[in-house]
């Protein structure tokens, strides 16, 4: 006898098909082909070259230092906001999340403006030396990445069980010991997960190293890859570098999956924190330290971008600028539409599927592209489909495909959270009242998922507007987006023009991510 479950199983193939098609054609086949090309052209002399050895050591060395610093800072900020209850903590939390979502090219420009040789602060702080090199790399990477540990650890701190800490305090442990022996072990999974992600993003960062690195000594694998593809047109070298990066990405992906725990149902934590400061002076010390820290790290670069906004008006009548804005939004819209159209049905079916093994495997698969840099995936696609760089239309297809693969891991979080609210019992209730599958979808599921869907669209638009690597790789000349405009202006040392475009992009992104943040907050 067939029940709804059996009917669903027959239907589910239709839901799985689009995402399987996109992932196999756009990601798995190109990446496998990249590995095959890498092995075919394997050259030991290339890997044993002293400069390449330096590049590898420097790439992962700087990623290690940057990621450890980011995790430390993220832990401190998360602790101060969640436990110390600093004044304006909620605002700072949202502000940090919002600013770290900005494209790396904007962050590089902001840091150059704030701490570069031309700025007063730069001259005071760095004296004879400049921000280029280690200071620039660390500032850029921490700016962009410390909010990952801040968010993951902060959420773990908020949702942890505080009863054991109260018990420990009552049997005579001091607060410091409680923190080391109970609180920190409780959030160690989040610390590890956030470190893996941060290390990955720091090792594959391109524009921070390109604009703030300062010379060949500060070359990373990603920069070498960019130079091989765009400057030297050496595809053989590019494939070898990309294969190495992809292998490291897969390794980190495996460790990341091992570190994951099943998601917990969020519940309000009614037990008070034992770390809330007892005196007004300690409370104020925490507040001032946090505001100064965030102000210096994020506020100053942002202000430096906005203060050059006056130049904006001289570029407003440029038709090229407006066409770049239209192209940027067009690509973002297409990416958002495709990503949601292929991901939503999959999550819908997985939500209703009772096979947890299959569910987990597919969710792991959709996260995988996040562990590859956009340059690596774009290269893999362009090698597997050589025609993609042939015409403008094909280039658009390549850009949208590559960006869709990157956006899917990002938007699956809000959509999955939305589905947690759409419980099976609620659907059964509607069904028992006579609602057919479509009626349940239209009148129950869609209204519940409306907010997560809107959030997913905003995340997609935000990500896509700031994406440069895919456009750089697929489009030699024709397609000019806002983010690419910033890159080209900076490459030609036309910083006023870069600032003007940045201000437009920055304002759009602040609005997009601000609304997204508001939606997330109101959900909580």
């Amino acid at each position: 006898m067939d029940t709804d479950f059996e009917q669903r199983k027959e239907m589910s193939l239709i839901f799985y098909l689009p995402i399987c098609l996109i992932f196999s054609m756009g990601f798995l086949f190109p990446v496998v082909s990249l590995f095959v090309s890498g092995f075919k052209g394997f050259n030991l002399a290339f890997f044993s070259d002293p400069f390449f050895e330096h590049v590898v050591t420097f790439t992962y060395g700087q990623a290690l230092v940057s990621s450890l610093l980011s995790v430390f800072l993220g832990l401190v900020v998360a602790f101060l906001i969640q436990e110390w209850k600093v004044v304006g903590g909620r605002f700072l939390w949202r502000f940090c999340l919002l600013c770290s979502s900005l494209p790396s090219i904007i962050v590089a420009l902001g840091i150059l403006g704030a701490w570069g040789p031309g700025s007063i602060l730069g001259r005071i702080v760095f004296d004879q030396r400049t921000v280029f090199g280690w200071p620039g790399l660390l500032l850029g990477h921490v700016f962009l990445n410390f909010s990952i540990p801040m968010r993951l650890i902060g959420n773990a701190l908020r949702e942890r069980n505080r009863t054991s800490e109260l018990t420990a305090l009552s049997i005579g442990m001091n607060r410091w010991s409680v923190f080391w022996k109970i609180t920190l072990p409780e959030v160690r999974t989040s610390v590890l997960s956030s470190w893996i992600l941060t290390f990955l993003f720091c090792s594959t960062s391109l524009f921070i190293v390109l604009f703030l690195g300062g010379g060949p000594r500060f070359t990373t694998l990603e920069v070498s890859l960019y130079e091989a593809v765009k400057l030297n047109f050496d595809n053989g070298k590019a494939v070898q570098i990309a294969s190495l990066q992809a292998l490291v990405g897969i390794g980190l992906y495996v460790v990341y999956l091992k570190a994951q725990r099943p998601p917990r149902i969020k519940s309000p934590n009614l037990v008070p924190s034992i770390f809330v400061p007892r005196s007004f002076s300690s409370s104020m010390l925490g507040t001032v330290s946090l505001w100064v820290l965030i102000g210096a790290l994020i506020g100053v670069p942002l202000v430096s971008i906005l203060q050059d906004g006056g130049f904006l008006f001289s570029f407003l009548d440029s038709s090229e600028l407006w066409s770049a804005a239209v192209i940027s939004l067009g690509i973002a819209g297409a990416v958002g539409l495709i990503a949601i159209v292929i991901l939503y049905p999959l999550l819908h079916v997985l939500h209703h599927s009772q096979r947890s093994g299959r569910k987990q495997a597919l969710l792991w698969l959709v996260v995988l592209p996040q562990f590859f840099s956009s340059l690596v995936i774009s290269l893999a696609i362009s090698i597997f489909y050589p025609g993609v760089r042939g015409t403008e239309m094909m280039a658009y297809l390549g850009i949208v495909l590559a960006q869709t693969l990157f956006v899917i891991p990002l938007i699956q979080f809000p959509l999955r959270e939305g589905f947690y609210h759409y419980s099976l019992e609620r659907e059964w209730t509607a069904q028992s009242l006579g609602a057919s599958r479509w009626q349940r979808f239209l009148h129950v599921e869609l209204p519940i998922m409306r907010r997560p869907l809107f959030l997913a669209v905003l995340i997609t638009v935000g990500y896509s507007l700031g994406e440069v690597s895919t456009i750089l790789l697929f489009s030699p000349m024709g397609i000019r987006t806002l983010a690419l405009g910033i890159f080209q202006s900076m490459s030609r040392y036309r910083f006023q023009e870069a600032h003007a475009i940045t201000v437009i992009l920055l304002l759009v992104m602040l609005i997009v991510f601000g609304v997204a943040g508001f939606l997330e907050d109101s959900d909580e």
Partner: protein
Amino acid sequence: MSEVVISKLQVERKSFALEISSLKLGAGKILGVMGKSGSGKTTLLHAIAGFVSLKYGDVDVFGIRVSELPPEKRKIALVFQKPWLFEHQTVLENVCFGLKLQSLSRSKCEEQARFWLKRMEIESLEKRKIWELSGGQAQRVSLARAMAVKFPLLLLDEPFSALDSPLRKDLRNLLKQIVQESKSCAILVTHDWRDIEGTSDQVLILDQGKELAFGSPEEIRKNPNSRIKAICED
């Protein structure tokens, strides 16, 4: 005449099997189902509603073999322990949900919904959002929503368990009255013998997926079997 007939029902799940040889319920009657946790009470309701596959057996409701139909076509309303109201709708819209699916006009839906809200004594809440309701109010909205569609069979999975004593008593009386008036049937799963005494015409005691006893509340009460006594007094 029996209006709900369950015959040779078998459900198999991973490490659990439910078997009901025969069960009959007349119009206007309520069947109470009791048993320890994991005895198969909820599985029985889900199997009747069509949310769990039957390995074997049939379910007939008012002469229609519903076990061959998908859940939405069975005309069996299900009420859970938690109200599971639709949070994007108001109280009135929640009660209208099932009525709208019956292609009634908007004014007719609202008229009927208001009637049921009044019977549940929550007519003043019709414009409220779901998160503004207390647990008891939400459960009454859930009952109103299920009763408004006037389906011949109503399945209730511990609907009173989260309510306080006076409200429980009121809702028990109301449920009995509505089922008798509408000549429909109801199956009530509960852990509380007072719910059975206050509503049910017949009682089914389940133990590890098997029928332990079936009869009127008085017959079950007088049964000397110690396991039955333990379940009833739990």
